[in-house]
């Protein structure tokens, strides 16, 4: 297995603990606003995990879009609805949901830990932004059409949100 150094290992375990703890906070905290803040913490932890995976561009995207834009939108929604005062309640499927999530987790963990992934010997430490751009806009195997479709999707989503929220 390639060596990413003691710092990488410590960073991984610290960030993994932070992310899982914050994710548990999102589900278990009874105050909706605190759950939203825990979600921001989880997003930041995942951005750190991207750094340990040498995905510098994605780490920046994660902070900008998730911890920035999406978190602000979610906190706006929390503050605009009065259900927040009742707290984050459970519905009647709590036990079944725990069972399903536990079954899923057990299955995936059994598969992941039971497979020999044959990890590559050499890990690249090069910056990824240029590589992503080249792969995204490659003439033959690029993602130019999905890229344009994504921009149309964003425009449609913005227009749809405005249309939904206009009075009348």
């Amino acid at each position: 297995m390639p060596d990413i150094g003691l710092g990488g290992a410590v960073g991984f375990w610290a960030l993994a603990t932070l992310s899982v703890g914050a994710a548990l906070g999102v589900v278990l905290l009874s105050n909706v606003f605190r759950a939203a803040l825990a979600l921001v913490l989880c997003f930041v932890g995942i951005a750190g995990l991207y750094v340990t995976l040498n995905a510098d561009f994605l780490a920046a995207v994660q902070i900008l879009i998730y911890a920035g834009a999406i978190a602000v939108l979610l906190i706006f929604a929390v503050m605009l609805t009065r259900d927040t005062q009742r707290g984050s309640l459970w519905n009647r499927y709590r036990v079944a949901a725990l069972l399903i999530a536990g079954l899923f987790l057990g299955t995936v963990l059994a598969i992941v830990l039971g497979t020999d992934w044959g990890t590559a010997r050499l890990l690249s430490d090069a910056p990824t932004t240029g590589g992503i751009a080249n792969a995204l806009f490659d003439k033959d195997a690029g993602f130019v059409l999905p890229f344009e479709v994504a921009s149309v999707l964003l425009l449609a989503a913005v227009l749809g949100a405005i249309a939904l929220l206009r009075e009348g």
Partner: protein
Amino acid sequence: MPGLSHYLALSAILFSIGLFGALSKRNAVVVLMCVELMLNAVNIALVAFPRYLRPGLYTGQIFAIFVVTVAAAEVAVALAIIIAIYRRRETIDVEQIDLMKR
């Protein structure tokens, strides 16, 4: 030392936490937060696979970027729907939003 299986296990744990929350919460905004958690968990796996199996291949990260884009669009529309429902019915409790079941 953390390897691919560590990242995949972490991804699975985060996804399961999100799945549990999305299925068992009553506040629609919290359900949406848990869906975001699940999308993030998938992104970790998408970035970890090429990092350890095919270094120098960026398709996984590009997929993750598209997931982030679609998630941003999804959050905007979903929150607009939640606020619109709240205006009409004064609640965003997913157990009380059952108009189509009647």
